[in-house]
């Protein structure tokens, strides 16, 4: 064979390869800081961006997680929420009925415990406190359990947390009905806590004396999941 066996020139290719690989791999360590910086820089732009192109960038956007095999799907007409447990007046409510109740809107950053943050997400729904009060809980209730129609996802809040004004049962996300990927048609939204507390595909609220740990709590995540004050994280509150 020819002299091609002994390539001439500067070994640039290997340096580029090693340099880029070192940069990429070290990102596992510095990436969480860079992600925060990126969301602060690009987040406000993405909100104003009319083209939606910035929305394609991997910053300031939702990642979709689900704990069962496929995305649970339920048409609004078939959706029903049961409110029961230690209550004087257990009841069930349909989608249209829920939308007819007094609504609140919240615009806040959505913060995931794995680090991503979506700036200025608009939610619309009904205060959880209103739905709880309607069932007339008895004096022994200290906690609230939530159940998803995916058959696996559960969550809990203390009664005090559940009564906060920034905890809602949401049916609109950024002005549109909530899609199945985002936990629709109706999900919980717990504004001051990490995303995993905002249970998706809500179908049941149970008022109890003591709460069983929820799905993510059994995986080792904190029960009181205040943003910036739990799970060993120091994020800005939403």
């Amino acid at each position: 064979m020819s002299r091609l066996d002994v390539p001439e020139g500067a070994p640039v290719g290997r340096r580029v390869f090693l340099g880029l690989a070192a940069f990429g791999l070290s990102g596992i360590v510095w990436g969480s800081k860079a992600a925060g910086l990126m969301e602060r820089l690009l987040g406000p732009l993405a909100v104003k961006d009319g083209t939606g192109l910035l929305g394609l960038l991997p910053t300031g956007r939702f990642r979709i997680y689900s704990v069962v095999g496929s995305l649970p799907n339920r048409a609004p007409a078939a959706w029903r929420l049961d409110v029961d447990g230690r209550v004087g007046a257990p009841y069930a409510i349909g989608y249209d009925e829920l939308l007819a109740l007094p609504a609140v809107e919240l615009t806040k950053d959505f913060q995931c415990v794995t680090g991503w943050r979506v700036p200025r997400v608009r939610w619309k729904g009904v205060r959880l406190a209103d739905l709880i009060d309607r069932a007339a809980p008895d004096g022994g209730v200290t906690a609230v359990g939530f159940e998803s129609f995916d058959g696996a996802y559960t969550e809990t809040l203390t009664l005090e947390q559940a009564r906060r004004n920034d905890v809602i049962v949401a049916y609109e996300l950024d002005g549109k009905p909530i899609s199945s990927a985002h936990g629709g048609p109706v999900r919980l939204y717990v504004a001051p806590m990490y995303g995993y507390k905002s249970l998706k595909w809500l179908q049941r609220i149970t008022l109890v004396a003591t709460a069983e740990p929820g799905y993510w709590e059994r995986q080792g995540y904190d029960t009181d999941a205040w943003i910036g004050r739990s799970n060993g994280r120091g994020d800005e509150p939403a």
Partner: protein
Amino acid sequence: MAPGQQPRDVARFDRTERWLHWANATLVGVLVTTGAILYWGELSSIFGRRALFKEIHVIAGLALPIPFLLALAGRWGRALRRDLGVLNRFSADDFAWLRSRGRDRSVRLGKFNPGQKLNSAFVGAALVTMLATGTVLRFFGPFPLAWRTGATFVHDWTALALGLAITGHVWLAVADPDALRGMVSGVVPARWAKEKRPRWYEAVAPDDRAPEPEPEPEPEPEELSPAAGS
């Protein structure tokens, strides 16, 4: 081919190199498709069955190094190892090509243009990065939570950059069918080689009237090179 006849084709990539290329292309295609489905909620809603796509994505990712290791492992990897050496080295012509952003017609290129060399270095590093960060994301148990955040960040942005590089790669390949043939059938027209890769052409077919350098199965006479494995 009769002696004295002008060679029409020049052997460019041997069987191992082509096998590796298309094995990688298949795995990366699966990874891009399943990754897109997992990443975009809209696509997830259409396809459902996230757990299945996640499983396929993880398996394809973990399988990624296997074709490389197999192709490099034995005697059959000689041409591949030599080409990796060629991709590593940047000649004075390569730098002139880069400075002119590919417009300088007077540069005489070897087997690969510098864009291909940089692309291979980038894609190689990106795949290593994707594999490592993907492993942290899949098996996050033993790692600090901040690593999971960091791995998510790197995995996402590297995927975006890799997607652009692959799009450019396919675009350029489709735009140059002669070059594409080199990776499909292993040979390129002599005319193409003479015009686009003159230095390589002279090395593999120094005399225009010489018979075509024999293609497979015996690509070249053996000459043990200490640099070959590097």
